């Protein structure tokens, strides 16, 4: 509890309107429950003074970096490279004597060289007059991201460069810009490539989404300040990016429903919340129900409340939960939410936006499942369609998300990024399958990934995950069997081996394998074997339409 309280106390300093460098450096945040991450820094100007500013922000987000700093190297030779979770190129582009075109060509070549050496995401942090061209180069290379420092500072009204202190500090970056960049690196740019995303944000109501107390002031009496209105609009924007919004409030349900029905000035509508827990129940229990309803793990849930005691109690009961302290001035809450690590991503794909509609359709699916005992009738009534694609290069980013994020139906826990998947495809006799799921209620998008290699007559399944959004529809076995059967690498195999990793939350995957193998005892860490004939002989269930898409 003390660690959560220390973070909440630091929040005021870290996300104040004008953070003070000295105040930030004075903070002592706990690191006992923080994740250590190795990051290579390839640089030609000072990074050390920035790294000291990154640390308080990263510890707020429960991580800290172990920086492997290169020597100052204008040539980006990547000397002494060692494996790391991320590669940061920290480049003063003003040191180049060549013209812009030549520099762009050179940086692309250096990014390609690092890409060939490292499977980790690469973040290029620099500035250039033709930043757009640099962005295009980065988009061309898998898992390379561009942090445009000039644009970042412009958006914050901060000067990027300052010659006056460049000799002193070893970097032309202005001291005020260093704060902006450190916060961006620690809270957004690096967490976006290092960690699974926050998938849902649960909000308290009173003194969080509005000023005042609903039970005392009534629906007409609670105050929607301009800042609270802006906060509610920010929350709606999160929802549009595919992040679930939940309401967790100690109130009477009918009062809350009346509030949203009568306050037309509220940007948020009650139907915007994918889960609503309004009761006098303890909040940790309510938050657990929210996570279960949204089928997400607690470490993908952020809880925002104005009551520090409630937050600390929730954090103590649910250590994986993320917490944020809503302030009386909602501008602060907005800033802290804007920067909360894991909420921001470089790219938001169509699959993210499908998530909310898909979840809303689950209630109807569950109702059908209880009403229709016959699986064929259930599948037919939903008009379920499965589309299988093999070695789909255009889906590698989404498939990497599945590998990196899936916790429940994840059999091997390889945590492969897009670069690793691309490398996998270049191996002899390898196949990658993607599975897309839709029914008449919603399109779930790409929901499964299987990676396998053939060695002699054995197909070795090295990665297998199914998104939680596809679970509970009686389709898991069909998805795996049909995906394997269609794999080019499977043809002629007599045995199928599955890599198995035991993880805290992958019981659904382990349970599926145990059932598929008709075992009475649980499967263990290592590999498990299935006869290929059971894959050959598998037929798609009646009522499920199966398509095979283009590679």
């Amino acid at each position, binding site marked *: 509890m003390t660690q959560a309280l220390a973070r909440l106390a630091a929040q005021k300093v870290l996300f104040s309107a004008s953070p*003070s*460098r*000295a105040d930030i*450096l*004075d903070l002592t945040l706990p690191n006992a429950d923080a994740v250590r991450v190795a990051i290579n820094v390839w640089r030609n100007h*000072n990074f*050390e*003074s920035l790294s*000291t500013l990154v640390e308080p922000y990263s510890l707020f987000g429960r991580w800290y970096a172990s920086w492997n700093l290169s020597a100052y190297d204008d040539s980006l030779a990547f000397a002494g490279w060692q494996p790391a979770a991320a590669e940061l190129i920290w480049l003063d582009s003003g040191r180049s004597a060549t013209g812009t075109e030549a520099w762009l060509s050179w940086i692309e070549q250096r990014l390609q060289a690092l890409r060939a050496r490292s499977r980790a995401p690469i973040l290029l942090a620099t500035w250039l007059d033709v930043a757009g061209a640099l962005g295009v180069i980065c988009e061309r290379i898998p898992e390379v991201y561009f942090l445009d420092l000039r644009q970042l500072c412009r958006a914050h009204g901060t000067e990027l460069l300052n010659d*006056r*202190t460049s*000799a*002193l*500090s*070893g970097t032309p970056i202005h*001291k005020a810009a260093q704060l902006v960049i450190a916060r961006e690196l620690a809270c957004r740019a690096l967490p976006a490539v290092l960690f699974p995303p926050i998938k849902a944000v649960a909000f308290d109501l009173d003194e969080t989404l509005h000023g005042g107390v609903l039970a005392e002031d009534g629906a007409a009496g609670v105050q929607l300040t301009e800042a609270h209105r802006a906060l509610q609009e920010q929350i709606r924007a999160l929802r549009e990016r595919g992040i679930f919004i939940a309401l967790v409030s100690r109130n009477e349900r009918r009062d809350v429903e009346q509030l949203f029905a009568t306050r037309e000035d509220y940007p948020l509508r009650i139907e915007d919340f994918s889960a609503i827990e309004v009761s006098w129940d303890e909040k940790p229990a309510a938050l657990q129900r929210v996570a279960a309803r949204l089928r997400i793990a607690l470490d993908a849930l952020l809880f925002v409340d104005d009551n520090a005691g409630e937050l600390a109690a929730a954090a103590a009961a649910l250590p994986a939960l993320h917490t944020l302290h809503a302030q009386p001035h909602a501008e602060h809450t907005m800033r802290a939410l804007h920067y909360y690590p894991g909420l921001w991503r470089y790219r938001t794909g169509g699959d993210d936006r499908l998530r909310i509609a898909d979840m809303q359709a689950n209630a109807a699916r569950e109702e059908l499942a209880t009403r229709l005992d016959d699986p064929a009738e259930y599948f037919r009534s939903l008009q379920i369609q499965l589309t299988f694609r093999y070695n789909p290069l255009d889906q590698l980013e989404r498939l990497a998300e599945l590998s990196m994020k899936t916790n429940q139906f994840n059999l091997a826990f390889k945590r492969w990024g897009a670069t690793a998947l691309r490398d996998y495809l270049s191996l002899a006799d390898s196949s990658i399958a993607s599975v897309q799921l839709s029914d008449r209620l919603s399109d779930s998008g790409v929901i499964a990934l299987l990676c396998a290699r053939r060695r002699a007559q054995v197909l070795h399944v090295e990665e297998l995950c199914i998104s939680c959004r596809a679970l509970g529809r009686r389709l898991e076995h069909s998805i795996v069997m049909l995906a394997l059967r269609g794999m080019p690498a499977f043809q002629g195999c007599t045995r199928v081996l599955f890599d198995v990793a035991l993880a805290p939350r992958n019981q659904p995957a382990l349970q599926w394998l145990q059932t598929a193998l008709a075992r009475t005892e649980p499967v263990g860490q290592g590999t498990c074997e299935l006869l290929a004939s059971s894959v050959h002989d598998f037929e798609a269930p009646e009522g499920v339409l199966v398509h095979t898409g283009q590679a």
Partner: protein
Amino acid sequence: MANLRETTEARVIHTVSRALKSQVNADSTRDNTPNWDSLRHIEVVFSLEDELGLEFSESEQVQLLSIKQIVEVVIKRHAA
């Protein structure tokens, strides 16, 4: 003038101690203060600028090598 010097010295000692995360005194210099390395020196200068509300020129920055020298530079600024 004596009052200005004493006040300035107290603020400088406080600010430098905070930046170095260790107590310094009026006789502290970069040479006799182990914590006052080149990385910390950047924070010392930035902290002094923020705390005292001024910006040191490049020629001033190279003089900020001890508490006494910092106090001299700051007092000259006040006199200017």
